[in-house]
């Protein structure tokens, strides 16, 4: 199995002390859908400028955790969260914190590419900035181009920025969605199985992009694909489902260790493909 250690270029650069932004702490997080507890008592620290992969069998609450982080979980009727998610010292679930603001700081890329069909490629990328109140077209033009370049999409779309975002291929659409989320300069990017709807070539391009984006963001990715977790992530957190069907964190640590020498038997069984 390929791990980070096999590919030296993937090692995360050590951040300069005192300049940390995007430090994310989950403290005793419980997530519920009405009375059903989907996530039990998860505490996890996420490092900035690193990719953390959340892995585990279906139904273990990985996606729910992701949606708890940017407060998308609560948009589902009856859903609620206990515990706290702390970003750079601020509890995102504090009463006076606005969920809308949180989502501008913590971007999200979804399983299925979801460009807005009524918007052009340009408008898709600009939409987040417009939400944040940016009106100057010079600023918008510059940031749209920079974001598309960053998402390695600029050369493919620069001549058709006015065409609908849905006219692109699946892989391009997903890169458009990544460009859209980085255009608002978030601190954290959450990716919920971003490659599960894509072909292998597109998947590779997205993975390269993630590794490239790691320099500036805290990236959290949910994936079913353990090779992917091994290829791109620095830290892996393994989740499983308890007897009460609630997902919980089994263990987390550097990806190389989780894949080569996990502490828990359950983790070993999963990463070696014996269950899940």
């Amino acid at each position, binding site marked *: 199995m390929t791990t980070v250690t096999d590919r030296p270029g993937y090692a995360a650069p050590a951040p300069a002390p005192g300049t940390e932004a995007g430090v994310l702490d989950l403290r005793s997080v419980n997530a519920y859908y009405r009375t059903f507890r989907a996530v039990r008592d998860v505490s996890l620290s996420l490092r900035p400028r690193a990719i953390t992969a959340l892995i585990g069998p279906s139904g273990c609450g990985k996606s729910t955790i992701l949606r708890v982080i*940017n407060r*998308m979980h609560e*948009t589902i009727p009856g859903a609620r969260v206990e515990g706290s998610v702390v970003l750079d010292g601020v509890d995102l679930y504090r009463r006076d914190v606005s969920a*809308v*603001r*949180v*989502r*501008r*700081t913590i*971007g*999200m890329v*979804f399983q*299925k*590419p*979801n*460009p*807005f*069909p*009524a*918007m052009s490629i340009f408008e898709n990328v600009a*939409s*987040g900035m*417009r*939400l*944040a109140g940016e009106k100057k077209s010079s600023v918008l033009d510059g940031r749209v181009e920079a974001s598309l370049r960053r998402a390695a999409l600029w050369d493919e779309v620069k001549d058709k920025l006015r065409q*609908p975002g*849905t*006219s*692109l291929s699946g892989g391009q*659409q997903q890169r458009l*969605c990544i460009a*859209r*989320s980085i255009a*608002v300069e978030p601190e954290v990017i959450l990716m919920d199985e971003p490659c599960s709807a894509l072909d292998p070539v597109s998947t590779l391009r997205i993975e390269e992009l993630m590794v490239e984006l790691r320099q500036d963001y805290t990236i959290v990715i949910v994936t079913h694909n353990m090779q992917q977790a091994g290829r791109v992530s620095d830290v892996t957190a393994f989740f499983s489902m308890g007897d009460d069907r609630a997902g919980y964190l089994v263990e987390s640590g550097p990806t190389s260790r989780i894949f080569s020498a996990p502490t828990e038997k359950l983790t070993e069984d999963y990463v070696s493909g014996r269950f899940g």
Partner: protein
Amino acid sequence: MDDRLRRLTRSGGRLLSADALFRRSTLVAVLAAGALLVLLFAVLVAQSWPIWADRGIVPFLTTPTWAPNYVDPVTGATSVQIGALPMIVGTVLSSIIGLVVAGPLGVLVAVFLVEYSPRRLAIGLTFLVELIAAIPSVVIGIWGLYVFSIFSRDTFQWWIASTIGRVIPFCAEDPANPTRFSVFTAGMVLAVMIVPMVVAVSREVIRSVPLSLREGHTGMGATRWETIRHVVLPTARIGILGGVMLAFGRALGETIAVTMVIGNVDQVPTSVFQPGQSIASKIATNLGDVTDQVELAGLLGLGVVLLVVSVGLSVIVRLLARRLGGAYVAS
């Protein structure tokens, strides 16, 4: 031929010929339905032929008076002056009023039902809206005649006429002669009748906007309203437009309720607060006791105009729907 082989050949089994029979009978049914429309159109055109042949299409559509025995006030000479213009203007104006009121209202109701309302409330409200659609149009006509028209004449009609009426054409009122029988009242009656249609279509289209798109926008830090405005409504706009046009078609052809309140005066109204006449109301009021052959042909000619406009509108909606169907292919 071997018995076993025969069972496998096309004409061998009885099952297959029953299938063919059924397929053919459905084909006949489809052809009959199509023929009905063509036949209807042909008969209407044939019966109204004198109007098209003797007076011509353009004069018929643009003559602003309806007088089979027109007496020239100066010369005293009589002539035939049969024109569809008063009815066309009355029909279009009243339907536009209905649309301007029912369109935004219906879309807002649909947005509330899908996006904001708790599920149980939505079910109850949807039922209520569907009940409006079940009200016989003559009953809505009674409401227009005895409740709405009096209320509007005595309260806000003058206010509308003296504010909006100064800017938008056709909205001024004759202050000396306020009337309850007007194109405006007809339009409001139509609005009540087409609101359920706008709501029903918009609700379905809005609901069909995928959750993934809403979440994509919410996940970028958009409020509920911003997502509705920037993603949901734009994505659903073609479908909503289709629903609104379908409702417009319904308004164009509505007869009895309009006949009750529009005033039935064959004049080209210069204001919506004047009495007028719609195509359907003209046919309904006059067809029973018409004796003049030319006038009869004129009334049937009005029918042709209405039919062409309604069918044309419905074709446009179908074309729009096809475009809408392709909208999600790429996403």
